């Protein structure tokens, strides 16, 4: 690993000599390509969401959002995120501590396992819980006998969400804590702090912005997950429909305006996430630099 010497983050936008930058026309072409590409692929879909949401006017919009089924979908989404995000935060901190602070055999393999949910199809993330907890599944009969309901209910949705958002916090913290090294904690320990104190007063303040950054991404994904949740939800109106599933249902009820109204809430959440993320990067860019790029 890189030694814990601190790199200098000099701004890169000072004046550039002609030899090390592109000619004006080339620059213009690259800028146009960038704007056109991002405009078509990112901006337009976002505009469509809000345009369609308000296509039938403001009153239709507010009506769509105050509908009881929509409200219960919003509640469920918040509930699922409120359970799964904190659990993944605890895991993320714990895994990052073990991986970043210690050298042990099989560390690379463990890191790969943590990454696994990133590259597993969301559909498979849902399917595994159906195979495990479904009435025909491995534990189905046992659960049934003990009256425990997991699939097609909130626990199943929470489990599937935890699965897909599993790596987010750990992935932000591991490189950050590796970069920072053990020096600060070792100093605290030699001054008589115990492990908890070292963690609470030294490590946590050091990684807090990275942690928050991970929580933001984790939360955005938790509230927006579709594929995995769709497989385990059962789609009961007002009970097991999360917001993304409710979007699909409304869309299939010829109610495009209402579907996009709910979608606009999710898009709004995405925008808030991006703004917070950018603010974090602007103020704490250097601290976060190590965690950029997953």
């Amino acid at each position, binding site marked *: 690993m890189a030694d814990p010497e601190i790199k200098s983050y000099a701004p890169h936008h000072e004046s550039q000599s002609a030899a090390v930058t592109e000619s004006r026309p080339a620059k213009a072409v690259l800028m146009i390509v960038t704007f056109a590409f991002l405009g078509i692929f990112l901006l337009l879909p976002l505009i469509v969401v809000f345009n369609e949401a308000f296509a039938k006017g403001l009153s239709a919009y507010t009506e769509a959002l105050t509908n009881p089924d929509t409200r219960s979908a919003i509640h469920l989404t*918040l509930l699922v995120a*409120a359970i799964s995000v904190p659990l993944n935060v605890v895991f993320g901190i714990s895994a990052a501590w073990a991986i970043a602070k210690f050298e042990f055999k099989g560390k690379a393999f463990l890191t790969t396992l943590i990454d696994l949910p990133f590259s597993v199809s969301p559909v498979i993330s849902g399917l595994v819980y159906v195979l495990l907890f479904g009435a025909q599944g491995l534990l189905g009969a046992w659960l*049934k006998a003990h009256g425990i309901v997991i*699939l*097609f209910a909130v626990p199943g949705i929470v489990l599937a969400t935890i699965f897909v958002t599993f790596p987010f916090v750990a992935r932000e913290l591991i490189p950050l804590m590796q970069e920072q090294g053990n020096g600060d904690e070792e100093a605290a320990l030699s001054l008589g702090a115990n492990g908890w104190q070292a963690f609470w007063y030294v490590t946590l303040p050091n990684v807090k912005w990275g942690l928050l950054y991970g*929580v933001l991404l984790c939360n955005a994904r938790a509230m927006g997950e579709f594929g995995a949740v769709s497989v385990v939800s059962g*789609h009961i109106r007002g009970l097991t429909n999360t917001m993304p599933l409710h979007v699909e249902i409304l869309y*299939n009820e*010829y109610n495009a305006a209402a579907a996009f109204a709910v979608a606009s809430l999710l898009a709004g959440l995405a925008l808030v996430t991006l703004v917070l993320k950018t603010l974090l990067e602007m103020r704490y860019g250097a601290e976060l630099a190590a965690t950029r790029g997953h």
Partner: protein
Amino acid sequence: MTNPHFRKLLGALVAASVQFGTLGFAFADTTILNVSYDPTRELYKQFDEAFVAHWKAETGETVTVQQSHGGSGAQARAVIDGLDADVVTLALEGDINAIVSKSKKINPDWRTKFENNSAPYTSTIVFLVRKGNPKGIHDWGDLVKDDVQVITPNPKTSGGARWNYLAAWAYANAKDGGDEAKTKEFVGNLYGHVPVLDTGARGATVTFAQKGLGDVLLAWENEAYLALDEFGADNFDIVYPPTSILAEPPVAVVDANVDAKGTRKVAEAYLSYLYSKEGQTLIAKNHYRPSKPDLVPAEDLAKLPEIKLITIDDPLFGGWKKAQPYHFGDGGIFDQIYKPAQ
């Protein structure tokens, strides 16, 4: 330094999560779950309200009816996997039989529990075309004309799509005098004209009506009328082909679930209410064909013309128990004719 600030933030996060956690759901006295197929959303929305009022008047109890909708096969799968349905109201017998055989949650004699083989209404398959019928589509044979694009969902996952397929099969069989090779060729040719294969009937309607794809939608009769209501009668026409199929979407109580939950009484009353005057009238108003038309005001029936309808129990198909594996099973006729079009 920034440390207390950050901890305050963490505190706020925790407080927020606790708050969300206490947002429980208010449960009524009794709750039953109706797991249904795609096009019945509007029907059961109205019917559930009527039933809740009826049950309150009858027994003084408050009952809440929850709905789940999706492709008929997908919904049956969810019940098999443990979705706690009290009643299932699916697109075809085959899907309820699948619950019977794969999970034993429904007793095998379910068809005898309610009138008309437990089908409170019937329906058929019609054509929805663009206004003025620019491609001149009047019969099944017109669907395979060169420039015609047909929208129909995937018969493997959608109940309605299976009826579409069988109606086309019946037409071709009659036309070719029962030559199965020719019938297969016609139906295979028909699916060669399908640019999008949605998983459910509702998805197909959205594709056709909202996204403007295709020249003709093979649709449930009720779904076609609903599309006229939703998207304006000045955009589409309904075409009745000379022959079609008699679809009998059945209903059943999920015995194992209602016995475990103690909801058998209300679940049975719920399905029986479908056969009442109120139930049958709502059924007709939503463009289904009531199984007891004499209970329904004549003006609600006027829209549903008589056409020649072949049934699934016709010797051509031999009932669902035979038709399902023969046509739609793994390696069945549909798998044989639906080959990569390269």
